[in-house]
C-alpha cells in the first residue's frame, strides 16, 4: 500500500456546529416529551394563577358589598328604635320606644302631598 494513499477517515460533522445548520431536530422521544412537559406546566401555572385572581376579585367584591349593607343596616338602626326581643320581659321603655317609632313612621307620611284631589280636576288636566 502506498503510504501516501492511505484512505482518509470521513469526518462526520457534529450536529449544530456548522454555521449553516438548521434547528436541531430531537434525536429521540425523550426530548419531545420534555418540551411538552414544560408547555403543560406553564399552562397549568397560568390557569391556576387566573383562578386565584378571579377568586380574589370575588372575595373583594363580596366583602365590599357586605360592608355596604352593614353600613346601611346601621343607618336604619340609628333612625328606627329596635323592637323588643320576644324572649325577654318587655319594660315600659320598650313600649315607649315602639310608640315613638310608630309616631315617627306616621308623621313621616305627608297627607297633603299624597293623592291631592286637585291633580285630577279639569283645570289641572286642562279639560
Amino acid at each position, binding site marked *: 500500500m502506498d503510504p501516501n494513499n492511505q484512505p482518509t477517515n470521513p469526518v462526520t460533522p457534529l450536529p449544530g456546529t456548522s454555521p449553516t445548520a438548521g434547528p436541531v431536530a430531537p434525536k429521540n422521544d425523550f426530548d419531545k416529551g420534555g418540551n411538552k412537559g414544560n408547555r403543560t406546566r406553564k399552562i397549568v401555572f397560568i390557569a391556576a394563577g387566573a383562578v386565584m385572581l378571579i377568586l380574589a376579585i370575588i372575595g373583594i367584591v363580596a366583602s365590599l358589598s357586605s360592608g355596604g349593607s352593614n353600613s346601611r343596616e346601621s343607618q336604619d338602626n340609628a333612625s328606627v328604635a329596635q*323592637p*323588643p326581643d*320576644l324572649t325577654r*320581659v*318587655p*319594660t*315600659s321603655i*320598650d*313600649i*315607649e320606644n*315602639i*310608640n315613638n*317609632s*310608630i*309616631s315617627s*313612621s*306616621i308623621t*313621616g*307620611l305627608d*297627607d297633603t*302631598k*299624597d*293623592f291631592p*284631589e286637585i*291633580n*285630577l*280636576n279639569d283645570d*289641572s*288636566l*286642562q*279639560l
Partner: protein
Amino acid sequence: MLDAANKTYIFILAFLASLLFFSNVDLSAQTAPADAPAGSSLEQRVEQRKKERAITLDEKASDRIVDRCVNAQGKIRSIRGTYTGASNNRTNVYKDVDAKLWIIIGSLKLIDKDTFKLEQQRLDLLKQINAFDNSAAQLRQTLDDLAAMNCKADPVGFKALLDTSRLYNAQVRSSFITIRSQIIDHIKPTLSEYADELKIKASSE
C-alpha cells in the same frame, strides 16, 4: 171632602215629590264605584264605569273632550307614576307599624297582660289598611285605563273613567286619614297605658 190640615199635608207631599222629580241632583255621581272584576278587559271596565256614572254629554262637551283628552292622558300617566310610589311607600309604612304591634302584643302576652283591646285595635287597623290598598289599586287601574283608552272615539267612556278616578282618589284620601286617626287616637294611647302600667309595676317592686 178633605179638611184644611189634610189639604196642607197633601200639598207639602206633592211639593216634595215634584222637587225630587225635577231636581238636578245626580245621584249616580255620589254612588261609590264597584271594584272592577279581576281579569276584566279595558273595554269591560269602560262599559262598567259608563253604566255606573250614567253620563250624558252634549255636543259641545263631547267635542271639548275629544279636542283635549290626548293631552290630559299624558298628564294622567305622570300622575299614575307618582301615585304608585306614594301608595307603595304608605303600604310599607303601614306594614311596619302592624309588625311592631304584633311584636309588642306578643311581648305583653309573655307577661300575661290582657291585650284584647290592643288586638282589636290592630284588627281594625288591618281592615283599614286593606281598604286603603284596595282603593289605591282600583285608582291605579282606573288611571291606567284612562291613559290607555281611545278617548277620541269614546268621550263618554273617558268622562266616566275620569269621574270614577276622582271618586277613588277621594276614597284613598279618606282611608289614609282614617288610618292615621286609628293609630294616633286609639293605638298610641293604648300603648301609653301599657307603658304606664309597667312603669308603676317596676317602681313598686
